[in-house]
């Protein structure tokens, strides 16, 4: 810690000086970063050279993607005149001929995908990157191939384009980096509206560019069941919107492999026992109150319908379904959801009531049994179970000790979860919900706004403090967090614009943590000023667009080209 502090102090003046001329646009900003003021460029025959014996296939593929993007990226520096402003600097820049990539001696050589799917607290994503101004080779070193992958991502984002020449203005650069939190996610709802595989792959690419580490896939819900399950093919055959709107087993395998090779683990959520109406299309016997009216009595949104938790055959069905799906998932995490269960749905369900009488148990007993049943399946498959916070805080369900609780209703719930000594990830609706603020989607509610108004701006998400209201002893319970997109009003048409670049705010919150590399607090009064974050986020946005992701503009281009001139006080 002492040496990191010393380094941070050294970095401060350099970083400030460099901002005056040119912001280094890394996002998320590395934990430790030192930059100079010398121009550096890549030689026309620049190569990325892997000095690792028997390199895994996905490492070579990642290198080759990086190499190819160094050619195809056409992003020019956001400054008046763009690259023409730097013509002279580029001409006299120090030439780099190679990036040499190595693992620390003694490190084991595993696939990126393998490293990515290790237990969440055992991943090593750290790396060190050096861009010299006197030697011809840059160096990247790490303990794992996953760390190398993170470093390659950083390396790609150092360069601007000037007629095909890639250059930076702030050499030498020294980066020593690792994430503040291992869990940095995006939660994605593919049930309310469906997204083709290609949209998910593009999203995974963009996620990897901001070093997100988890896709939390809310794959099914009450509206549709797009997941093909071998044990129950009827689930998607009858519960998907259409035969074209199904993720086949191959699709899922492909998506997970694609994600894992990009440093992203996949946590699949099978939300239960609520949010399951779509199951009734194939198995009406397992669902209480399906599409019952008025829906507002029986569910948080239409259509109503929940698994019959008191029925032993439904428990068996849930066990089989969880098991069949868990069998297909390589990661070490899986979620049983558990949000928004509605007791009235069961109280008015004759079969549930008779099951309760027969077995002489209460609804809460049945709920506990259900949670234990599905958690058991998850654990038997070697995975850590995730659960939504209301199952713990509202229903007091007896979850296993290593459960990870997804805190969603409000950021204030995190402290209550931590008090119980449970691990948690932050997904608070009052900071991170990407869907809020687009108005009411229910019919016949003329001037209704969205339930979680207002729109969560990138500034709002960025201001999140993962340790708020927690004691230092509880800090270790926080694994990270994720921004979710619930898809009632979203679909492939607006996927990119509604998540990018806002999702990147969450990525930096959980990679960089609470302090910027200069030692200052990431969360302060001027945290979203141009100097701190906006200029870098503008740069990320233009890079995303350059790579084919339809990220929205955060400001008029006039402002993006003139960092600082569109601040409130400029």
């Amino acid at each position, binding site marked *: 810690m002492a040496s990191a502090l010393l380094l941070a102090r050294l970095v401060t003046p350099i970083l400030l000086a460099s901002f005056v001329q040119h912001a280094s646009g890394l996002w998320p900003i590395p934990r430790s970063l030192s930059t100079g003021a010398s121009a550096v460029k890549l030689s026309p025959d620049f190569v990325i050279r892997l000095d690792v014996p028997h390199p895994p296939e996905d490492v070579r593929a990642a290198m080759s993607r990086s190499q190819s993007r160094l050619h195809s990226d056409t992003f020019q520096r956001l400054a008046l005149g763009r690259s023409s402003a730097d013509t002279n600097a580029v001409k006299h820049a120090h030439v780099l001929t190679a990036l040499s990539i190595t693992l620390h001696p003694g490190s084991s050589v595993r696939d990126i995908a393998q490293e990515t799917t290790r237990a969440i607290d055992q991943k090593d994503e750290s790396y060190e990157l050096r861009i010299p101004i006197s030697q011809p080779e840059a160096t990247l070193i790490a303990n794992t191939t996953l760390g190398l992958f993170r470093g390659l991502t950083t390396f790609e984002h150092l360069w601007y384009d000037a007629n095909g020449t890639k250059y930076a203005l702030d050499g030498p650069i020294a980066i020593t980096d690792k994430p503040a939190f291992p869990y940095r996610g995006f939660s994605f709802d593919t049930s309310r509206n469906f997204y083709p595989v290609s949209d998910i792959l593009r999203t995974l690419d963009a996620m990897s560019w901001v070093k997100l580490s988890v896709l939390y896939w809310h794959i099914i819900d009450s509206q549709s069941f797009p997941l093909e399950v071998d044990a129950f093919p009827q689930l998607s055959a009858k519960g998907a919107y259409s035969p074209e709107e199904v993720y086949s087993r191959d699709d899922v395998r492909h998506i997970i492999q694609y994600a894992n090779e990009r440093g992203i683990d996949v946590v699949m959520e099978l939300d239960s026992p609520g949010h399951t109406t779509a199951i009734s299309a194939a198995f009406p016997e397992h669902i209480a109150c399906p599409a019952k009216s008025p829906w507002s009595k029986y569910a948080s949104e239409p259509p109503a319908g929940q698994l019959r938790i008191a029925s032993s055959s439904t428990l068996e069905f849930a066990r089989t379904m969880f098991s069949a799906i868990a069998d297909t998932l390589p990661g070490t995490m899986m979620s049983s959801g558990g949000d928004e269960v509605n007791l009235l749905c069961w109280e008015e369900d004759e079969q549930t009531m008779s099951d309760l009488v027969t077995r002489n148990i209460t609804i809460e007993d049945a709920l506990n049994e259900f949670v234990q049943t599905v958690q058991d399946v998850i654990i038997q498959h070697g995975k850590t179970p995730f659960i939504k916070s209301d199952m713990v805080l509202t229903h007091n369900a007896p979850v296993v000790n290593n459960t990870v609780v997804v805190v969603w209703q409000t950021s204030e719930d995190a402290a209550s979860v931590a008090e119980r000594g449970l691990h948690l990830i932050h997904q608070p609706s009052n900071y991170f919900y990407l869907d809020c603020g687009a*108005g009411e989607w229910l019919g016949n509610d003329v001037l209704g706004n969205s339930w979680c108004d207002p729109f969560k701006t990138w500034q709002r998400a960025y201001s999140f403090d993962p340790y708020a209201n927690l004691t230092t002893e509880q800090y270790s319970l926080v694994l990270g967090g994720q921004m979710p997109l619930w898809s009632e009003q*979203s679909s492939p048409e607006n996927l990119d614009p509604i998540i990018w670049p806002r999702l990147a705010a969450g990525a930096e919150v959980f990679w960089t943590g609470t302090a910027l590399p200069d030692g200052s607090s990431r969360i302060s009064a001027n945290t979203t000023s141009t100097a701190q974050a906006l200029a870098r986020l503008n740069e990320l946005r233009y890079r995303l667009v350059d790579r084919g992701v339809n990220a929205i503009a955060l400001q008029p281009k*006039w402002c993006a080209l003139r960092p600082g*001139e569109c601040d409130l006080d400029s």
Partner: protein
Amino acid sequence: MRLIAVLFAVAHVSGVLALWPLPRSLETGTNALKLASNFDVQIDIPHAPSDLKDAVSRTKSLLKSDKLGRLVVGRGASDHNTLQRSGSLRTLRVSLTPGSPVRSITEEARLAIGTRSEGYTLQIPSDGSSATLTANSTLGLLRGLTTFGQLWYEASGEIYTMEAPVSITDSPAFPFRGFMLDTSRNFFPVADIKRTLDAMSWVKMSQFHWHVVDSQSFPLEVPGYTELASKGAYDSSMVYSPKDVEDIVAYAGARGIDVMIEIDTPGHTAIISAAHPEHIACAQESPWTTFANEPPAGQLRIASPATTNFTAGLLSAVARMFPSSLLSTGGDELNTECYVQDAETQADLKASGQTLEQALDVFTRATHAAIRAEGKTPAVWEEMVLEHNVTLGNDTVVMVWISSANAAAVAARNFRLVHGPSDYFYLDCGAGEWIGDDVANSWCDPFKTWQKSYTFDPLANISASQAHLVLGGEQLLWTEQSGPENLDSIVWPRAASSAEVFWSGPGGDLNTALPRLHDLAFRLRQRGVKAIQLQPMWCALRPGQCNIDS
């Protein structure tokens, strides 16, 4: 009106009619009718204009390419049996009522606002005998073709309706049904504008209000003033050349859309200083909050005779690029402090003995005289009437934007007006603050939902004797936080809300509107416009089941 209401209620029960905007008079049946495989549109007009022929071929091609399944569970797969017994439509006969002039759609669309003929009558028998479309103008025929194109679904390879016979007599309640796009804060390529014009035409919009330049960039290449774009555009690829303008204007005209260009003056002009610093007061002056509503500050030097001449010349040159009879000189958000602190302006005022308001009047009279000399009628933002005392011609069109409450005051001054109120029609609201170092929300929060826009009453607080002053309205996209990346998703289908308010008239029912708007949004997506989903698809397939009280 009572007849229409009853018929409409019946149509809704049968469940599927998806026209948007809703025709003013509509009768539908309950028979199935399919398009024959050799279906054709026959134009019974001698020497039919080529843009009408083009509109017919576009319609025919959309009939084939839409491939929209009915929005019901099963998407109409079960309609197959019914269709085997149904009539088969072989011909739509298109004709003008006897004695009507044969002019191109483009010419008709560019007639002075209020004098255009957009009405049409469409009859589709259920027995397979020819359907007929008649109108008094080719523009009316275009509107009717648009309606015809929205009637059909596809299932099992058949293109069909379940609601024959159909009888429609239609004409718009208001002539100005618009969409405004700001292409200065962020730039939009010509292709994006054309796609937007297509979508606009599919909901029968009549007016594209092009806010082409502003303080941030000057993307319009104006003959004689090319330095403005060469120095003021974001870069050389972000310029609308005269050829681009010609292309856009022609594309719009052929689709029944007139293009009203706006050169916002004297405020919102900072970027002119890139080429002509001598004409701009307080250019990029700091703190911008003192001198402008948003950065960068900078306004034309209205007290300078040279600047006035320059502006009048520029506006004349722009007027010559655009065939519309309307041209907006803008006039919003003028900042007094900018001039108070500008030594040149103060010296000019002193020399002429004018107050600032007098200078503004002289300036405005000069610019309006210049465009009138080119045959244009000026349009201005509401402040020119409500906050400043400038001399305006009686026929000036006033654009109301600050608040819907201000329309009555404009009408009281006896000016024609167009509704674009920020509290109903601003498509950009609700996306948070774009100014740096500020965690506030957008100034015009909250997000304007389609429902909110749909409840707008164009005649609220306006007396019957003033009603004729209301030309219509428009939804607007200011692009501080928008670009080509989110153009479709931020505009569609919300902009269709006002298209129906101003075509069908106010007072539409939101519950029956929602399934129709779903239908439109699905059709837009089939046609390549990225309209957002209004609800989970589960709801779209089950009208009424996702109401708050269902």
